[in-house]
């Protein structure tokens, strides 16, 4: 049906109609057969596609290629390249988790020793003071895990993250949540071993969440390192001040939990309002 292609090439109107699905079948077939063989018409047809869409796909292609994606797998309904980016999160690696467990073992052991070397609880405060290192460290471990999930220089895949087309914010939240969840498991386990009130394992969840959310909220204002340091400093300061007042456990008791909930809500609000500030720009 070469008569459809007056100058030997498909007309622009015709190609636009084809791209919009507005030509009849016979014409569409002629165009497809022609375009397979004709470079000029191929590029004219390619011009009908949104250039931004093609560029986005191009960068996903690069990411998938660099991550060794075979283009075939999709596990648990999640695109393979997203899984691979997640798996490249430093704080989800085995070496990281081993160091978390190591630090927890030291502070837990310290608390246990401090208690039993004193020959049992000497009523209230002394045993609380023995808990200070554990109180200090536990949420900080969670914070470190989350921070490592957003610090470019810890992350070999960060160039790929920066090239990824999905929002940096989404990826950051996914990574931070998984890092936090993974860190909380050894923290809760260690809290069982620490001599302290029976509610201690559960009591770390809210303060850890609050400290991490604070760091994420701070990332919308300052650089990632400053944000993590500031959030960590807030926690350390709170624990040390209360330890100075001989009431370190207060930080995870009722008043502490209420303050943590407040901080969490405020940080979530800041994140919600300013999430567009966490685009890929700051990761470079």
């Amino acid at each position, binding site marked *: *049906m070469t008569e459809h292609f007056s100058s030997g090439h498909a007309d622009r109107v015709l190609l636009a109609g084809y791209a919009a699905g507005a030509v009849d079948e016979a014409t569409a077939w002629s165009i497809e057969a022609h375009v397979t063989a004709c470079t000029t018409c191929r590029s004219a047809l390619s011009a009908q596609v949104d250039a931004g869409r*093609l560029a986005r796909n*191009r960068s996903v292609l690069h990411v998938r*290629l660099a991550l060794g994606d075979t283009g075939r797998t999709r596990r648990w309904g999640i695109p393979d390249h997203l899984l691979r980016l997640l798996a490249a999160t430093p704080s989800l690696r085995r070496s990281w988790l081993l160091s978390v467990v190591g630090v927890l073992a030291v502070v837990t052991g310290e608390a246990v020793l401090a208690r039993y070397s004193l020959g049992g609880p000497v009523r209230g405060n002394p045993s609380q003071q023995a808990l200070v290192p554990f109180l200090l460290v536990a949420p900080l471990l969670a914070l470190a895990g989350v921070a490592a999930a957003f610090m470019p220089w810890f992350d070999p895949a960060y160039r790929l993250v920066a090239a990824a087309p999905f929002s940096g914010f989404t990826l950051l939240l996914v990574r931070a949540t998984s890092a936090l969840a993974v860190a909380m498991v050894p923290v809760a386990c260690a809290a069982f071993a620490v001599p302290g009130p029976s509610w201690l394992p559960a009591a770390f969840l809210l303060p850890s969440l609050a400290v991490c959310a604070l760091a994420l909220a701070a990332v919308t204002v300052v650089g990632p390192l400053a944000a993590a340091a500031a959030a960590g400093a807030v926690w350390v300061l709170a624990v040390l001040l209360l330890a100075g007042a001989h009431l370190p456990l207060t930080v995870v008791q009722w008043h502490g939990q209420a303050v943590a909930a407040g901080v969490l809500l405020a940080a979530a609000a800041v994140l919600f309002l300013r999430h567009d500030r966490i685009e890929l720009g700051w990761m470079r």
Partner: protein
Amino acid sequence: MTPEPGEPDDAVLLRDVARGDEDALAALYDRHAGWLTVRMTRRCARPDVVDHAVQDTFLAVWREARSYRGSGDVAAFIWGIGIRRLIDLTRRDGAARHRPPWRAAEPQVVVSAEDQVLAGLEHGRLGQALAGLSPELRAAIEATVLDGLTCAEAAVLLGVAEGTVKSRCHRARQALRAALAESPSPARKAWGTP
């Protein structure tokens, strides 16, 4: 993008891709992703599935570039990979239910009769014969004849059973043969009907 006079042609690029040259793959992408997207969109209305299929196509080109025999259009080679990637995704996502709406209904954007005339379009006998087919029969013919798919592959793309594709192709061929034999062509008119 049309290759500039100095640029390597597609076959050369494909050879470079087979040697592991990522820049060559990027150049192939820039030349072919656009029309591939349009052509896939005619077969699957979901942009996310099409985008994924386009990426998968170039990942497959990356893997399978060596299987290109060096004869035939690179575009045809890429389409052969692309349509099968699209079928794979269609099978996985159950996207067969998301056929482009304009296959079943009237087109949203209509190229007016004047435009078609301006574009040099006339409805020849084949056009008329095809227009006489039901959309189902046309889709079956398109998948097997134009896309070069097997009946099993076409069945996945169209979301029907393999036997259905076979019988539709058979009916479509019969209908086309009958239409082409009966419809009076301009030439026949000039000769007069016996």
